[in-house]
């Protein structure tokens, strides 16, 4: 019992914000796992990161408009997906250039929107909550949106699972088998955008890519079979979020006393730890770490 108490500080399980955070974190990590593994396999983890930057613009616009931040995250990620799809036909070097410029512009726009909402509307703390988030502060009003984003994302991945894998591993073979790779790619980008929006809601726009790609990269170091890797990614993601919540709750008694450390810090730190451990393990077993794309 005393060990349980040492790990879970008193009141952990009866705490309202903790209960909501545990459920929310698990749902989001579970959605991010398959989408993240596909992102790494398709070499689109940078797209995930790009969405993360773009979502900060949507999140800050939502704060300024006084609507749920998850709507802003989702709308801007969708816009990002659409523009990325539009740019997809162009050459790679050109695409990097355009993406980099657009991302810089998006973050600059977030700076303006956040400035406006803190100086004009008194939404104190908007900067921290949009960029770095706190799963403890996610209002229960967001639940319908979480469902509305998470379920279709999983459904899209499930519906296009085999063609997605095939076009990820071998585009030529997929084309020969008659896979409509453009349609499949667009479906995947939509799922990716939805997952980024969910991750942004949980750990903030800037860090969302860590929850999306981190567990997936670690999982692909443990198993190269996509299905198994997705299961691993889910386990690693949920463990990171839950352990992060426990640590954040415990940190209340750490210095500076009575404040608590940001939960997003713990989640991302744990994801990083899992990734480092997985790479070290893969190295020792002579396997090439599949997560190098991250």
């Amino acid at each position, binding site marked *: 019992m005393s060990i349980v108490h040492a790990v879970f*500080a008193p*009141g952990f399980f*009866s*705490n*309202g*914000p*903790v209960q909501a*955070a545990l459920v929310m974190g698990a749902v989001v990590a579970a959605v991010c796992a398959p989408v993240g593994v596909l992102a790494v396999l398709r070499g689109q983890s940078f797209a995930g990161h790009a969405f993360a930057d773009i979502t900060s613009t949507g999140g800050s616009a939502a704060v300024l408009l006084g609507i749920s931040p998850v709507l802003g995250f989702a709308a801007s990620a969708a816009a990002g997906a659409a523009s990325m799809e539009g740019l997809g036909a162009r050459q790679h070097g050109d695409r990097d250039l355009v993406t980099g410029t657009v991302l810089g512009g998006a973050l600059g726009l977030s700076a303006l929107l956040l400035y406006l909402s*803190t*100086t*004009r*509307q*008194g*939404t*104190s*703390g*908007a*900067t*921290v*909550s949009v960029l770095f988030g*706190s799963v*403890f*502060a*996610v*209002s229960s009003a967001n639940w319908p949106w979480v469902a509305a984003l998470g379920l279709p994302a999983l459904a899209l991945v499930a519906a296009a699972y085999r063609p997605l894998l095939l076009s990820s591993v071998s585009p030529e073979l997929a084309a020969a088998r008659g896979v409509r790779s453009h349609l499949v790619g667009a479906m995947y980008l939509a799922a990716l955008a939805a997952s980024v929006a969910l991750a942004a809601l949980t750990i903030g726009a800037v860090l969302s890519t860590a929850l999306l790609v981190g567990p997936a990269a670690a999982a692909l170091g443990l198993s190269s079979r996509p299905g198994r890797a997705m299961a691993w990614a889910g386990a690693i993601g949920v463990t990171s979020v839950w352990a992060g919540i426990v640590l*954040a*709750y415990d940190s*209340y008694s750490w210095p500076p006393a*009575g*404040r*608590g450390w*940001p939960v997003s810090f713990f989640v991302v730190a744990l994801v990083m730890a899992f990734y480092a451990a997985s790479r070290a393990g893969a190295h020792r077993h002579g396997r090439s770490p599949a997560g190098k794309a991250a």
Partner: protein
Amino acid sequence: MLVLRLVLRYYELVAQRVRQGGSRGFPACPVHPSLPARRPALALGVGTCLLVTAAAVAGCGRVATGAAGARVRAIGAENEYANVISQVGGRYVQVSAVMGNPDVDPHDFEASARLASEVSQAQLVVQNGLGYDGFMNKLEAAASPPGQRVVVVADLVHPRPGTFNPHLWYSPATMPLVAGAVARELTRLQPSHGAYFEERARAFDASLAPWHKALAAFAKAYPGTPVAVTEPVADFMLAAARARVLTPRPLQTAVMDGIDPSPQDVAAQDSLLAHHRVKVLLYNVQVTDPVTAGFLATARRAGVPVVGVYETMPAPGYDYQSWMMAEVRALSRAVAHGRSTVGF
């Protein structure tokens, strides 16, 4: 074309200044830059583009006959201090306020170039201190006229070292000290009007009596009333009313500083509200975020009345005294009749 654009820009600035309720230091006339315009009503009276240029010239021409040259230029970093300066200084001061938009959290305020030029011309500055308006120190250090007098309210009040609550103007003891200091500094700047300033400072102190009485009456009728707050904004007034703030202090500081409060403190606050262990929830009208919105929702569900308090003076329509009276009345209504007051 350039002149027209300058003129338009000038009217924009005048309009901005008037909207903010400031009454001093209008920008220099673009046509005759050496002549500052001092007739906002006249300057704004002509709004149409056709008449803009003519009006600007006329406005500048009028300045020479303006008799306001002897006024002390003063700035209150917060509009409640500006209000006290103008009540004490009367017709011999031109006061403007830096922070006074009721929709904005003063903690998030950032200094602009326009403000820097205003501060560089002010002879008297009243600021809160305790890091609440730290940007003022930078502006004063950057450029200030020789002999500029700066009153730091925290230095008058001597709050306990390490106090976490910078909202000194909610304490009944604060403003009489500020009025006294303002009268002293104005006398130093304009010795011939010393008696006038002193008289007005005394009148200001006397005008606080109804507020002090209302606080004492509340303390007597409802001693030790348990209350919850989102921020320490009105904590000094609550202490004067002998109310007990049950909200954990770290939660108040976290919301004030714009960071997410710990789940422990959020749960503690929720249980105060849900189990009716407090008679009222006071929240800062100027600072809203998902966390405070959650507390408001919990309070409404549980039937705990909520009272919105202001961080800076809600203007127009209020002076310091009537603002403080309105806050106490709202508190009494909530505790006596369970009535909520969301902004006034």
